[in-house]
C-alpha cells in the first residue's frame, strides 16, 4: 500500500474538465516525477494533494486516511511552489518559522534568540550558506530556494514533499545542492514529488514517474525503465526529435547591428556584431551580465560608454521607447516583472502593441482588436478559455506565447530573446525555436540569451560566452565542443582562437 494513493480522480471546472480518471501512487523513500506539458493538469493535481482544492470525483488516501473526511491528513503533505514566496524584508529565521506555530521557541512572546538557535540547525541540515539573522533579500537565489524547502520541512508531520520546478532559476552547481537535500529527505523515509521540465534532472533524481496529458494519466512506472525520448513522447503525445536543430539554414549576410566598447553597471567593454540570417547565442552563468548587456542595448538600463550602430546608423541608447519605435524588442526572462500586465485580459495584453491595426476614427475599435487578437491566438496556438480572461490565469507557456505573438505583430527588425523557454514544456519550446529560426531566415536580427547549453547548440549559429561582465569567447556552434563552451562560461581558458 502506497503512502499516498489516488484513484479515479476527476476535477471539473465550468466548461472544462481539468482532471479525469487520474491514478497516482506515492511511496515513501522514493522520488516521484510528475511530468506533463504546461496545462496538463499538474497544478490542479497538486492543489488537490495539498487540500487547496477538492476533487469532483475519485478517491484520495493519505496514509490510509481520507483527507476529505479528516483534513488533518493533509498535514503530512508539504508543497514548495515554483515562485519564491518568502518575506524579503524579514530574517531567514523568521521566514523559516512563520507563522511561529510550530517552532519550539516556546511561550507566546517572541523569543528572538531561541528562534535564531533553532534556525541554525535547519540551515546546517539544508546547507544554506546564510546566517539566521540575515535578511532574505540579501541571500542568494539558491539559498532562497533551499530556504523555501527548509520552511516546508519545519512541519514535523511532513512525509510527502512536493517540489514544483525548484531548479528553474538555478545553475548546475546549485541544482546539486537541491539534490543533496532531496536525497536527505529520502534517507529519512520521506517521499518527494518532483516537477520539472529539465529532462537531465528528471533522470538523475527520479525513481518513479507519472505522466499527465490533457488532464489524464497517460503513463506511469519506473524511471529506470524508460528513455528520455519515451518520456517526451508520453508528455507530448507524438514523436518530437530532441536532437533536431533549429539553426537558420540561410547564408549569413552583412551585419545588422554592431556593438562597440559597450559598458554599463555590470559589464565592461562588450563588442560584437549581429549578422543577417543568423541566431546569435549568448551563454554564461546567471549574473554574468548577459541580460544587462541586452537591456542596455535596448535602452532599459543605462550604458556608461560605447556605441551601437544598426544598419550603419547610430542607435540611440537609454531610451526604450525609441528602440521600440525603431524596431528593436527585448523579451525579458522575467515574464512576471517585465512582460505581462497581470490584471488585464489576454486581449488587452496583446492589444497594447497593435494600435496601428486597431485604431479607427472613433478610437480603438473593439471589433478590429478582437479580430487581430484572434489571429495571434490562432497563429501562436495560445490555449485559453477566451481572450477576455485575465492573462495571469493562463499557464506560463501560454503567457510566453502571447508575449512573443505580441512582439511579432509589431514586425521588429531586431528581436532579443532572454531565456525564452524558462519553465516551458518541450513542445512549446520547439515552437519557440521554430519561430526564432523563421525570423532569422526572414532577415530579422535574432539574439538568444540562454543558460542551457543544449538550447544554444540547437538554435544558435554562433555563440558568444560571457563571464563576470566580460566576453570570454566567440564560437561557431557547428565546430565547437561543448566542453570548450563550458570552459569559456566558467571563465577558465577563454579560447577565442577556437572560432
Amino acid at each position, binding site marked *: 500500500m502506497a503512502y499516498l494513493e489516488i484513484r479515479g480522480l476527476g476535477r471539473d471546472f465550468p466548461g472544462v474538465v481539468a482532471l479525469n480518471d487520474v491514478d497516482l501512487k506515492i511511496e515513501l523513500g522514493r522520488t516521484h516525477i510528475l511530468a506533463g506539458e504546461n496545462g496538463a493538469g499538474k497544478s490542479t493535481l497538486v492543489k488537490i494533494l495539498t487540500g487547496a482544492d477538492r476533487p469532483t470525483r475519485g478517491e484520495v488516501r493519505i496514509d490510509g486516511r481520507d483527507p476529505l473526511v479528516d483534513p488533518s491528513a493533509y498535514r503530512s503533505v508539504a508543497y514548495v511552489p515554483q515562485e519564491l514566496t518568502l518575506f524579503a524584508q524579514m530574517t531567514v529565521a523568521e521566514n523559516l518559522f512563520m507563522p511561529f506555530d510550530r517552532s519550539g521557541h516556546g511561550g507566546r512572546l517572541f523569543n528572538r534568540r531561541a528562534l535564531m538557535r533553532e534556525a541554525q540547525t535547519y540551515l546546517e541540515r539544508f546547507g544554506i550558506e546564510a546566517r539566521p539573522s540575515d535578511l532574505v533579500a540579501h541571500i542568494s537565489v539558491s539559498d532562497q530556494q533551499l530556504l523555501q524547502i527548509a520552511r516546508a520541512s519545519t512541519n514535523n508531520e511532513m512525509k510527502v514533499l512536493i517540489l514544483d520546478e525548484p531548479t528553474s532559476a538555478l545553475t548546475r552547481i546549485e541544482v546539486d545542492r537541491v539534490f543533496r537535500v532531496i536525497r536527505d529527505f529520502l534517507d529519512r523515509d520521506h517521499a518527494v514529488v518532483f516537477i520539472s521540465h529539465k529532462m537531465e534532472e528528471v533522470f538523475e533524481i527520479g525513481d518513479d514517474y507519472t505522466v499527465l496529458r490533457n488532464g489524464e494519466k497517460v503513463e506511469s512506472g519506473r524511471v529506470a525503465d524508460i528513455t528520455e525520448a519515451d518520456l517526451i513522447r508520453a508528455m507530448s503525445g507524438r514523436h518530437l526529435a530532441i536532437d533536431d536543430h533549429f539553426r537558420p539554414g540561410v547564408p549569413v549576410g552583412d551585419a545588422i547591428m554592431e556593438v562597440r566598447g559597450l559598458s554599463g553597471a555590470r559589464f565592461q567593454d562588450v563588442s560584437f556584431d549581429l549578422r543577417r540570417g543568423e541566431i546569435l547565442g549568448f551563454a554564461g552563468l546567471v549574473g554574468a551580465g548577459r541580460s544587462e548587456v541586452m537591456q542596455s542595448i535596448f535602452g532599459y538600463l543605462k550604458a556608461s560608454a560605447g556605441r551601437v550602430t544598426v544598419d550603419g546608423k547610430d542607435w540611440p541608447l537609454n531610451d*526604450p521607447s525609441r528602440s521600440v519605435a525603431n524596431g528593436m524588442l527585448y523579451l525579458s526572462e522575467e515574464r512576471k516583472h517585465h512582460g505581462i500586465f497581470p490584471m488585464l485580459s489576454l486581449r488587452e495584453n496583446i492589444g497594447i502593441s497593435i494600435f496601428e491595426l486597431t485604431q479607427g476614427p472613433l478610437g480603438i475599435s473593439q471589433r478590429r482588436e478582437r479580430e487581430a487578437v484572434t489571429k495571434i491566438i490562432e497563429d501562436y496556438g495560445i490555449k485559453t478559455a477566451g481572450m477576455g480572461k485575465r492573462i495571469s490565469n493562463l499557464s506560463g507557456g501560454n503567457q510566453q506565447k502571447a508575449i512573443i505573438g505580441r512582439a511579432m505583430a509589431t514586425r521588429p527588425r531586431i528581436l532579443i530573446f532572454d531565456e525564452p523557454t524558462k519553465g516551458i514544456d518541450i513542445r512549446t519550446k520547439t515552437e519557440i525555436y521554430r519561430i526564432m529560426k523563421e525570423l532569422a531566415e526572414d532577415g530579422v536580427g535574432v539574439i538568444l540569451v540562454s543558460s542551457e547549453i543544449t538550447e544554444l547548440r540547437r538554435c544558435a549559429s554562433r555563440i558568444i560566452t560571457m563571464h563576470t561582465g566580460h566576453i570570454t569567447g566567440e564560437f561557431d556552434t557547428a565546430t565547437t565542443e561543448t566542453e570548450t563552451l563550458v570552459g569559456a562560461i566558467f571563465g577558465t581558458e577563454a579560447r577565442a582562437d577556437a572560432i
Partner: protein
Amino acid sequence: MQSNLSVLLRNPLAGVFVVLVVIFVLSSLISPYFLTSYNMTVLARGLAFVGLVTIGQSMLMVLGELDLSLGVNGGLCGVMAGVFMVQLGFNPALALGLAIAFGAFLGLINGLLVTMLRLHSLVLTIGTAGIFGGANLVLTRGVAITGIPTSVQFLGRGDVLGIPVPFVIMLAALFIAGFVMLKTPFGRYMYAIGNNPQAARMLGIKVDRVRLILFVVAGALAGLAGVLMVARLGTAQPSIGDTWVLAPIAASVIGGVATTGGVGSPIGAIFGAGIIAMIENIIVLFGVSPYWQGIVSGAIVVLAISFDAISRRYLRRDLA
C-alpha cells in the same frame, strides 16, 4: 442568448451600479422629499464639484498614484480666481482660465517631483498639500474674497434644460476621460502602467510622461472644481475643497478602482461618488442628528463596499 444579463453582470461596473440603483430606489421609498426636482438638482450640483476631483483622482489611482493635494489645490485655485477678478480686476473669463491653469501648474509640480526624483506620490502630496493650503491662508488670512462678478455665477448656479451647469461640465469631463481611457492608446497605456510599470517601459511606453500628464490633468480638474465652486457661492471661500480629499478616494474604491492601481475607471468612480452623495443627502432629509451623521454615512459606505466585494466574489466563482 448566452444571455445579455450575464454579459452585463460580468462588467466590473455591475456591482457598484446595482448598489447605486438600490440606494436610489430605497431613498425614494423612504423619503417623499428625495425624488423631487429640487432635491435632485441639489444632489446633482453637489455631486458635480466633488465629481470633478474624483475623475482626476481615479485616473491617478489607475496609474498607481495618489494626489492628496487635490482638495487644497481646488481651494487655492478658487481663491486665485477671486484674487484675479476682484483684487486685480481681470476679465472674468481670463481670470477663470488663469485659475484653472494654476491648478494644472500645481499638478505639474507634483508630477515633476514624482517622476524626476522618484518620490512616493502619497507622501509627497501630503507635503505639497500643506504648502498649497498654507499659501491659501497666507493669501486670504482665512477671510473670503467677496464681490465676485455676477456674470460668472451662471457657471455655478445656472441650469441647462433644467440640469445644473456644473453637473453638465462634470459629465462632459467624465465623457472625455472615459473615452480617453477606454478607447485610445493613451488610456491603455495608463492601465498598463498601473499593472506593471517595468513591463510598460519594456514595451516602449513613456511611463514618466504619462504620469506627468495625469498629474497635470488631475490638478486642472481640481482647479476647475474650485473655480466652479466660487461661481456657485459668489465668494472665494478659503475653505473650498476641504471635503475633496478623502471622498474622491473612497468614491474611486467603491467604484472599483484598485488602491494598487491598474483596474477601474472614472465612470465607476463617479458611480461611487453618487452613492456617497445620496447617502449624505438622505441622512439630511431624514433629519438624522448631526452628531450621528458621521457614524451613519460611514457605516453605509462600509456596507456598500462589502456588498460589492461579496457580489464580486460570488460572480468570480461562477465564472472561474
